């Protein structure tokens, strides 16, 4: 894990290789975070494409923000950041689903 990406710069470091170490119980077809349909994302939602520690958010070719939450570590940052805009529907995964920390 020491060889990933660049050191002090701002270019992206791959988060997928980190998440690969984690254990998940994915609730297939029932994502616990949903983005409300939008034309243009708010600055806050757009920021999540960089800020999400699990890299769940990305921008599609129409400039809208999409989320794939299978690798979510359930920190809640996106919920806090978009609380004012109301663009996310955020719930905990159903009991027993989601990330399972081995060490925490």
């Amino acid at each position, binding site marked *: 894990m020491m060889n990933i990406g660049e050191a002090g710069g701002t270019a992206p470091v791959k988060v997928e290789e980190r998440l690969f170490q984690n254990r998940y119980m994915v609730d297939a077809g029932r994502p616990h975070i949903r983005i409300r349909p939008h034309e243009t994302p708010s600055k806050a939602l757009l920021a999540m494409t960089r800020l999400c520690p699990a890299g769940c958010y990305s921008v599609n070719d129409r400039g809208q923000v999409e989320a794939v939450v299978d690798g979510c*570590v359930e920190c809640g940052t996106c919920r806090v950041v978009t609380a004012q805009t109301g663009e996310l529907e955020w719930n905990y*995964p159903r009991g*027993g689903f989601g990330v399972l920390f081995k060490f925490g």
Partner: protein
Amino acid sequence: MIEERFDAIVVGAGPSGNAAAYTMAKEGLKVLQLERGEYPGSKNVQGAILYADALEKIIPDFREDAPLERHVIEQRLWTMDNGSHVGMHYRSDDFNEERPNRYTIIRAQFDRWFSGKVREAGAVLLCETTVTELLRDTAGRVIGVRTDRGGGTAFADIVILGEGVNGLVGQRAGLRPELKPDTVALAVKEMHFLPRETIEARFNLKGNEGVVIEAMGTITDGMTGTGFLYTNQESISIGIGCIVSDFTESNRTPYGLLEAFKRHPSVQPLLEGSECKEYVAHLIPEGGYNAMPQLYGDGWIVVGDAGQFVNAVHREGSNLAMTTGRIAAETVVWLKRRREELSKGNLAEYQRRLEETFVMKDMKKYRKIPDFLHHNKHFFNLYPKLLSGAAQTWFRVDGVDKRTKEKQIFQSFRAGRKLTGLIGDAFKLARSWR
């Protein structure tokens, strides 16, 4: 879901919930504890340091079987710039005592152990059960919870909310406001495994001795935040966290920041050859006293991170969580013995008791610090650089006389922050600290 009525329902099986459930169950109350994870600890994240005092007041002989990693004999405080660190280290053989004061722990293991004690004490624990809402009677009193187990409900005289920083139940019930991006930090952490002997050689340790490093400086790229590195028996916990609103305005990713911290020349040799086995992220409530919500009401009490019980300056949280959990439980037991109602008025006793402990005293002492640090970024960027530059000027022997070196150092500080700025920062820091 469960037909019988309980004395108390505890939401969450972290340090605060476990402390509360254990204390009540041990006193003979009928306790139901609900945890959304597969097992207690599976959703929980911490650095992690265990402060013995808080746990001793709940389980005095915890050292006999708790999964402890290393007792801390050395604390390193580092201010870092891009290629250096200026350190203040305190190491003492006094910390090699019969009942050590601080331990590193691995939360998923520790929480499981603590939960075992809770069940031994007689509490009923249901895992894989997410509480979805609080149930109230017509007068607005909290009387129970609804869960996602087929929408099942459970009823009790009191609901203790130990649901963590990101606690949705209390928030959606309007018991406390939504977290604000400028009063909450996002921390990411990795677990790096190394042979025990390697850790002991690198950190100058023997047996179960441990070192903790807390770091600030350019590692957070101008954001309000800190990094940490803790030694466990056969692993190193390394992480970094910054205030969320700073993250939103920066161009950095949390994992990019962590990667840069790991690759810092002061840190990289400590991790060399390690294998990362987990990557986690969590929020830390860092708003302090001024961000604390209402702590109790008719039929409910909030404990731990959900109540913003974190002393960000001293990196303390789990001890505040256990202490608030214990005191909430003791208050409930006391009221029940007196056959008093668990009403808002009577539960004010919880806060009165907290006021007499270090919990509220420390929260109040540092009430101005979160705001101060958020608006004085010099402490995370400029000053670490100046400090490092000064140290280098002072230690480098290069034919320049010492009086000239002193002048250079003084001038570097004046050029960086002007005399009025320096004095002003010192004054503001002192005033916030008081």
